[in-house]
């Protein structure tokens, strides 16, 4: 048989496969009729075997068949597809489980945050020359001027609230993303961002404490801050997870370790976005609301309890099954 005959005999098969692929490209797999759906597997296998035959005997058709098979392969073989059910499953089960599995990374990130907050407070307290590192001079002056006028800072005009809320949300999401992806710099970028935020928090807390306004300060920070710090800790931990792949890949090559860990880290980031959105809404509307500091702290307590419950639910999940497979967004 020559390739002319080969083409003549099998052309119909290839054309049919090609038509089906065109339809998939235009309307997705759901646009196929029942017969098409049933025939696509056999057609693909037949064409693939033609490719093998052509590679040996008819090199002039092999290129065409290769393109056809490659194109079909990238449409027909898939390991997972997007579904809302998977997303729901991820947020209710998979994510808490992930947090549980990688808890030491989050504890490490939290430790960095706390330590740098203490450091920031100390720098400020002893009036070290390095205090400017923790808190830029302009902010310090602005805060002090507010004290002089008897104000405690955050009094957002009603009309400004939505703007603040969304600006803060966007800012926090970006900071968290950076925290995460900069883990690839052997973790230095992640730690830098964590330390900077910790220093700022510590220094501010110390200034307010020095002025005898601790209650006001924490009532301004904690209602949204609990969730915000929670999310930043999660992303920081995820950044450290990525860093661990680069620093200590273990039995894998660095690239392979990075691939494995980055996927988990990204899932953690996706999980923390809604937390940041909620925190942003609270920061825009509840934090500046005209209610007593005590009430705000109680509210903060509620958010802390909710976050804790969410994380604790991961414990039961972990017992149930394989920790590697956190569900939907699984690979």
């Amino acid at each position, binding site marked *: 048989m020559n390739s002319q005959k080969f083409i003549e005999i099998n052309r119909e098969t290839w054309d049919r496969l090609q038509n089906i692929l065109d339809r998939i490209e235009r309307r997705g797999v759901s646009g196929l009729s029942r017969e098409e759906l049933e025939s696509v597997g056999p057609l693909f*296998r037949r064409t*693939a075997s033609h490719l093998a035959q052509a590679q040996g005997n008819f090199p002039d*058709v092999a290129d065409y068949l290769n393109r056809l098979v490659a194109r079909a392969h990238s*449409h027909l073989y898939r390991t997972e597809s997007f579904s809302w059910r998977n997303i729901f499953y991820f947020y209710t089960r998979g994510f808490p489980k992930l947090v549980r599995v990688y808890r030491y990374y989050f504890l490490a990130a939290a430790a960095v945050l706390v330590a740098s907050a203490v450091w920031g407070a100390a720098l400020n307290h002893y009036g070290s020359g390095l205090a400017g590192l923790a808190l830029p001079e302009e902010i310090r002056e602005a805060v002090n001027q507010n004290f002089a006028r008897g104000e405690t800072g955050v009094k957002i005009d009603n009309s400004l609230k939505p*703007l603040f809320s*969304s600006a803060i949300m966007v800012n926090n999401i970006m900071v968290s993303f950076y925290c995460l992806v900069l883990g690839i710099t052997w973790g230095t970028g992640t730690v830098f961002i964590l330390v900077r935020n910790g220093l700022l928090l510590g220094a501010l807390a110390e200034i307010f404490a020095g002025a005898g306004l601790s209650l006001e300060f924490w009532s301004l920070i904690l209602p949204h801050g609990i969730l915000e710090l929670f999310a930043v800790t999660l992303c920081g931990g995820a950044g450290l997870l990525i860093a661990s792949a680069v620093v200590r890949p273990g039995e894998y090559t660095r690239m392979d370790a*990075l691939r494995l860990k980055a996927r988990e880290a990204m899932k953690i980031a996706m999980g923390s976005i809604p937390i940041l959105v909620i925190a942003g809404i609270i920061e825009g509307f509840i934090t500046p609301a005209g209610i007593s500091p005590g009430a705000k702290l109680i509210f903060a307590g509620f958010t802390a309890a909710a976050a804790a419950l969410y994380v604790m639910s991961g414990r039961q999940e972990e017992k149930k099954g394989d920790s590697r497979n956190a569900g939907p967004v699984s690979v």
Partner: protein
Amino acid sequence: MQDLSLYSSEKIYYSYKLAGLGSRFIGFFLDTLILIGIYAVLAGFGAAVFGILGDVSQTVTFITIAVLIIFYLLVSFGYFIFFETIWNGQTPGKKAAGLRVVRKTGEAVTFSSILVRNLMRIVDALPAGNFVGIAAISFSRNHQRVGDMVADTVVIRDDQTGQPILFEAGDTDPELAEKIRPRLFMVDEKDFSLIREFFTRMPYMKPYHAAGVAEKIAGGLASKLEFQPGEIKSPIVFLKTVGALFREK
């Protein structure tokens, strides 16, 4: 162009053509243009709110800006994620540039791969002008940017499949064939692949271009086969006849 060779699950050996820096830049550039268009619409929407309502209260002003900021974030990340998810690894820019994202194992991209490779755009954009991404695409083995490496994806050329070239009986000239047959030993594999390549591309060429190219190829081949200059009347029929005879051999 570089190939990525794989075995399908039928244990058939096949390959993808990997996209290089140039075509990926075109795709990215087109997507960026579209994104700028969307941003312009968003800005226009904001301006319209102020323009139509005139002297609006501060509350409306800030709510509008707040909504715009959120949309900005959603669009700049969501654009790539959305299109790559619903179009199986293509965005409008990638489609126009003939590119597609697939898993390195040759399967369709998964939602999580899409998330990972697009969030990692932050790293590829470092420190400015997508420097990291460009360097990675240039030097990595499979032309992957950092996001691709982490997500285990490659960007491939997804051109038209085309048609296998058939030299049908009606296209060939039996009289001419009789003249060519004794000289067929002078035609080699290279000549044939030139003919095949020409007919593969012909449907995508403008007719007068195609005619010009056919004349050149036929002219060269005719003198190689020791035909007299005036002997070939239709270059395309000549090429088809040679192709059909060579295949039969």
